[in-house]
């Protein structure tokens, strides 16, 4: 049995229609004009225990709405969700005890008191045994380097420190599932790295299931094995990251460092389907489609007319792959 099972999930919002003119706005105070907006449109998915899933999509694609339904905060308009066989909406307290959440833009801690006091309250609320609490705390303080910050009230912490404290808070009760919503938003690279390492460790050591939404694709690439892409409330891709890369990487970039560049002097690039992205005194950047053109062909062609000093070939990163898929999906091609 899958740990998380979602079938034909739909969420519709009633949204006030923009009245347009001020006069109509006055009228809509009494008789608002609503339109139905489908934020999540017939989603099906299954997630196994211990999986780390990247849930990605452009802004407003329905990511957060899905997570809120999974955690039982929002009621689905239609469809079913089962978490360990339980329906989150009806078993909220039970599910809450087994899940952890991290929101990049919100805090689960109490703002005015030392972080440690917040942890103490969480310990009582989640009924964490003293030993587990101590062991976890010790490990997390060590991993996230929080020694000096847990006696400080949250409001006096920097964004990165707050995030660390919140991530540790989400794991104190040994949750089985953790939702991470933009966990590294606004953080510097050092903090990002620490947080990613921490999450990886939790996934490896404790087989915690993760669902990560992030616009930082390094988060997704370093944390997740599987990627689910959602656009306009519909799942576009649900596959292993490696497979997505293989299936959708069609374009590669090749950069030459040349001693003498005849193409900068008006020479025509003679291979069809190769796009010249940049051309300068000594450099040449080309983009080509791997299905149509072979890289060796380009190398041979370039070396025939010029002296190659250096060359590098880059595949697309996952971010630009996703961007292209979304673009195509918006045009109705996928």
């Amino acid at each position, binding site marked *: 049995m899958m740990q998380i099972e979602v079938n034909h999930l739909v969420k519709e919002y009633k949204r006030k229609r923009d009245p347009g003119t001020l006069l109509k706005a006055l009228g809509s105070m009494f008789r608002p004009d609503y339109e139905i907006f489908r934020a999540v449109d017939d989603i099906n998915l299954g997630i196994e225990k211990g999986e780390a899933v990247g849930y990605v999509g452009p802004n407003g694609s329905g990511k957060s709405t899905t997570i809120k339904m999974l955690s039982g905060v929002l009621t689905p308009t239609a469809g079913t969700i089962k978490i360990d066989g339980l329906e989150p909406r009806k078993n909220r307290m039970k599910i*809450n*005890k087994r899940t952890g959440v991290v929101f990049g833009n919100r805090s689960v801690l109490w703002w005015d008191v030392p972080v440690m006091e917040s942890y103490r309250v969480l310990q009582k609320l989640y009924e964490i045994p003293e030993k587990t609490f101590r062991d976890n705390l010790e490990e997390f303080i060590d991993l996230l380097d929080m020694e000096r910050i847990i006696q400080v009230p949250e409001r006096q912490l920097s964004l990165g420190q707050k995030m660390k404290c919140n991530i540790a808070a989400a794991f104190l009760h040994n949750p089985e599932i953790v939702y991470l919503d933009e966990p590294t938003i606004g953080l510097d690279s050092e903090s990002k790295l620490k947080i990613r390492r921490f999450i990886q460790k939790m996934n490896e050591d404790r087989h915690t299931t993760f669902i990560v939404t992030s616009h930082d694709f390094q988060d997704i690439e370093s944390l997740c094995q599987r990627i689910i892409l959602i656009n306009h409330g519909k799942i576009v891709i649900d596959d292993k990251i490696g497979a997505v890369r293989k299936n959708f990487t069609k374009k590669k970039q090749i950069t030459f460092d040349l001693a003498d560049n005849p193409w900068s002097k008006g020479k025509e690039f003679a291979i069809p389907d190769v796009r010249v992205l940049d051309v300068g005194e000594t450099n040449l950047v080309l983009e080509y489609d791997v299905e149509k053109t072979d890289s060796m062909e380009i190398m041979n062609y370039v070396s025939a007319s010029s002296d190659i000093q250096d060359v590098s070939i880059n595949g697309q990163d996952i971010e630009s792959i996703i961007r292209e898929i979304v673009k195509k999906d918006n045009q109705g091609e996928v």
Partner: protein
Amino acid sequence: MKKFYYLMRMAFMTKFAYIKAFWFNIFGTAVSILIYYFLWKYVFRTREELNGFTAAQMTTYVIISRVLSSQFSGGIDREFSEWVYKGNIVVELLRPVPLLYNLFGKRIGEFLFFLLFKGIPISILATLILGGTGPAGAGQLLLFGMSVLVSIVILFWIEVTVGLIGFFTLNVWGLTFTKSALLSILSGGVVPLFLFPDEVAQVLNYMPFAGMVSVPASIYLGKYDWNQAVQFIGLQIIWAILLGLGVLAFYRFAIKKVVVQGG
């Protein structure tokens, strides 16, 4: 119970973090006591008593009513509605205790803070300085305490309702303001209920609002005999239960419609 204690403690500590702001709050209440004190002093210049109240009793009524009704503008409704319109409600809904339990713990914590840092010291000081009367007796003092306790439960339900309306209006500033103004008047916090027209006063006496100021103050001053006092407290308890049931039903309905704003 342990959970409740820790939630209460957290509210207490949070309040304590703002102790400097709280001094101003106390100052405000002290000033309002003084204003009402001088107002009534003027009234009692030409008479010995008013509707059975002596000047000293009226002073005590002013102190108790000002202190108790200073709670109306605080409470959890503002924070609750802030959770709603800033979207933080999602964090609170994901806690392993029911939202109302969490809120009630917070409310009681704030009440204890109020009692310790404002209610008790201000009442004693003001009574000594302005020359009010003490409680009519030890029994009355006990019943007074009970009445205040029950009134916090009623106040809590009202605050939750105001916060819940925030689910729909997405903002409750106007509503919280209306709430504190209405409660002050209907509870007898501004003027004693006997100053209202007889019919109105009769109705107000039996409304849940009276339990927040008028009933406890009258019990304290010995205006009700033992039987009456117990009956009024019983009525308050019935109101607390009825309101609780109503608010719970409204809560269940509203929570289904939660629209979490932002991200």
